[in-house]
């Protein structure tokens, strides 16, 4: 199973994360981690439940603003702020989810997209988001007396959060619950005939995914000290799909790789590509769908299995 | 191949997803001949027809349609070689009226029946021509499915269980239609469960068992090979 085969990368990954700030910008790594978490959360839904949500930005954005507002205006402790954001996203996830799971396949994608757009408009008009200005100057605060304004201090908090969440996701995938999710993706009517309430499993998966996406958003606010409308815009929903697709949907590490790639790509394109950024993003999408459906990690695993002469399921 | 030979199927294998249904079917049908495929439920007769039309999943082997290899052609090209297919499930369109259903298939050759001829042959269709296709009774749907391919001038007809679900009188009429078609030098490949219907019509009978042709019986041998048929078809 995944567990045994892929545990060494996790170890290596964590080790890498711990030493990373020595070489790379902590903030950059933190940003990557935020999006990686976002993508993993999304992948939990697409890759392991077979539901394509095209509105996940709603959860990222809502949580980002909630946390930001809580920390800045209500001046709650950092931890509380993070929790608020996550719980808020989960609640929103429950609402959107229970509407969306009434439809399957493409419809599901469209419904989530539309509802996310609704959320976007609400955030846009709500005074506390400060519209275009964005919610700026959110304090990082302290955690157990440690001052988080220090990038390195925050860095290790973010790493901890990410590793924790990542572990939870993998745990979920392997858990009894995850087994049923897999089964649902494979053959829904059969799962029903075995006496499972499929809708509830889908909903829980959706809420879980929303909550973790929320955590990503909350953390992002903490890292950058601001939340902006971009976090809730449907382009963001598209980006997370791209990250997952590029990295390899349904693989545990794919989204992480995808997120890292896209984030760095965007940063670099900022200097070189001039006004063609969106075109390039679009092109990557098309190529992935046409030629590269398994994604980087997916192809990697396939290759690896072929080498050790094992069949690919 | 002999000039009069119209359809030659050799070593035909067909699959639905992973399940391997046809295990090497071999037979030929001569022009103007009526051949019947007999066999138990699930033996693979429908699949044989679907495979000829290119409607199954993967298929291998060879299908010669009066001299043209058709195994790799898409369905509509096969039809345009002069084939008419009447599916087991009838395939009447809910979205189309009876008349639209009737006029749907494009004409693929000369000598097809005119619409009037057809309505003359099946008065019920004339009466119901404006009602939605699937609102027709099972029997009428069956007539419609047959009628619409008679219009196209196809010379080879693949008919799957056309007698089923029809009142005896109509079964009678269908038998007459087939006879008439034979007069007109149509070539007919018939899949039937209803032995009584098929027996008098068929020049030859092929018995399908587990995706293979296990026996061939000519019209005149019927009586002496009765028990063998019993054994193959009965339980």
């Amino acid at each position, binding site marked *: 199973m995944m567990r045994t085969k892929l545990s060494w990368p996790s170890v290596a990954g964590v080790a890498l994360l711990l030493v990373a700030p020595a070489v790379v910008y902590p903030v950059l790594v933190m940003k990557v981690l935020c999006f990686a978490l976002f993508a993993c959360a999304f992948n939990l839904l697409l890759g392991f439940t077979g539901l394509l949500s095209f509105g996940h930005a709603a959860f990222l954005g809502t949580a980002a603003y909630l946390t930001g507002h809580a920390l800045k205006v209500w001046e709650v402790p950092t931890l509380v702020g993070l929790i608020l954001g996550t719980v808020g996203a989960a609640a929103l996830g429950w609402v959107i989810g229970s509407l969306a799971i009434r439809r399957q396949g493409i419809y599901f994608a469209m419904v989530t997209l539309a509802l996310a757009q609704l959320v976007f408009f609400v955030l846009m008009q709500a005074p506390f988001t400060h519209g275009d200005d964005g919610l700026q100057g959110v304090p990082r605060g302290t955690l157990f007396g440690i001052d988080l304004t220090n990038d390195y201090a925050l860095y290790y908090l973010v790493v901890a959060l990410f590793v924790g969440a990542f572990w939870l996701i993998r745990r979920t995938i392997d858990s009894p619950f995850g087994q049923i999710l897999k089964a649902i993706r494979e053959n829904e009517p059969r799962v*029903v*005939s075995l006496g499972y309430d499929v809708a509830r499993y889908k909903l829980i998966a959706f809420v879980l995914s929303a909550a973790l996406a929320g955590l990503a958003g909350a953390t992002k606010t903490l890292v950058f000290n601001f939340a902006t409308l971009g976090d809730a815009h449907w382009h963001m929903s598209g980006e997370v799909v791209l990250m997952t697709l590029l990295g390899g949907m349904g693989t545990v590490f794919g989204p992480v790789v995808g997120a890292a790639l896209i984030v760095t790509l965007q940063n670099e394109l900022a200097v070189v590509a001039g006004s063609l950024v969106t075109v390039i993003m679009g092109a990557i999408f098309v190529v992935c769908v046409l030629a590269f459906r398994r994604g980087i990690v997916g192809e990697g695993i396939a290759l690896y299995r072929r080498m050790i002469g094992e069949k690919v399921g | 191949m002999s000039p009069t030979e119209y359809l030659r199927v050799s070593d035909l294998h067909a699959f639905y997803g992973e399940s391997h249904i046809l295990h090497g079917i071999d037979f030929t049908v001569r022009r103007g001949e009526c051949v019947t495929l007999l066999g138990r*439920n*699930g033996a693979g007769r429908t699949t044989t027809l679907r495979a000829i039309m290119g409607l199954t999943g993967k298929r291998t082997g060879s299908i010669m349609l009066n001299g043209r290899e058709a195994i790799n052609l898409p369905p509509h090209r096969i039809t345009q070689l002069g084939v008419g297919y009447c599916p087991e*499930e009838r395939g009447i369109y809910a979205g189309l009226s009876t008349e639209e259903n009737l006029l749907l298939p494009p004409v693929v050759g000369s000598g097809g029946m005119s619409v009037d001829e057809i309505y003359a042959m099946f008065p019920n269709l004339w009466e119901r021509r404006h009602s939605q296709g699937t609102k027709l009774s099972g029997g009428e749907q069956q007539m419609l499915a047959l009628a619409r391919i008679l219009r196209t001038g196809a010379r080879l007809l693949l008919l799957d*269980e056309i007698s089923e679900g029809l009142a005896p009188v109509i*079964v009678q009429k269908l038998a007459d239609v087939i006879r008439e078609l034979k007069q007109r030098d149509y070539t007919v490949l018939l899949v039937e469960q209803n032995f009584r219907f098929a027996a008098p019509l068929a020049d030859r009978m092929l018995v399908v068992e*587990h995706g293979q042709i296990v026996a061939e019986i000519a019209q005149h041998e019927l009586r002496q090979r009765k028990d063998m048929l019993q054994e193959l078809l009965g339980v």
Partner: protein
Amino acid sequence: MQGQPLPGDAHDPPPILETRGLVKEFRGFIAVNGVDLTVRRGHIHALIGPNGAGKTTCFNLLTKFLEPTRGTIRFKGEDITRAAPQAVARRGMVRSFQISSVFPHLSVRDNVRVALQRELGTSFHFWKSGRTLDSLDARAMELLESVGLEKFATMVAVELPYGRKRALELATTLALDPELMLLDEPTQGMGHEDVDRVMELIKQVSANRTILMVEHNMKVVAGICDRITVLARGAVLAEGDYATVSANPAVIEAYMGAESEDLFGEEPTQATSTRVPATEVVS
């Protein structure tokens, strides 16, 4: 044509499943038309009939995959006409599908475990380790052995041959230890040897449960079924044990036509009714 359910005499076991006036219409087309079905505890009960007779639809109605248009369904004395499919399954009525229905990319063992884990009641626990399911492996293996799949336990279900898939499906169904098992054409698409194995299997698992199955293969029906209901055009045409039913002229005409005695009688008879083969209808 309505067949009378035989009066239940003394040594007839009590009914476990009863339907009264069951009707299903699909946009004007009546697939199942007033079926009164009585399945008795411990029986292997066969549902036969020409293609399109309404057998699969009946299954879908009984297991609530379709909402009946009219009529009632009573299972173990309770009315389940409006229950949800998963609820029905939990009460102990589990069905298999006409087209083989496994979880293609799970291992054979995990296929069975999916069914087994329901009993643990931890299926919503996304925080629990997958290892907590290992306790089920022993039972899973037992079940696989019972259908002769133990050698394939770690194989991915996709790679099983058609016949074995059906066996796996059976094992999965058995995992729920249902009181009433509905099998839709369990031998369909199988070679002789497979058929015999499955027959044996069904016989053996029927020990302490009731089985209702759709079957085209008269050999199987004749071999193991205590009771047979013949459907035609959505209605019950006849009911009884094999001898009774196979002797019934209506049945011979409607279904067994081709093997009836006067094989070469000239007069054309009532033909059987065929519409969409369920393989293309259900799913």
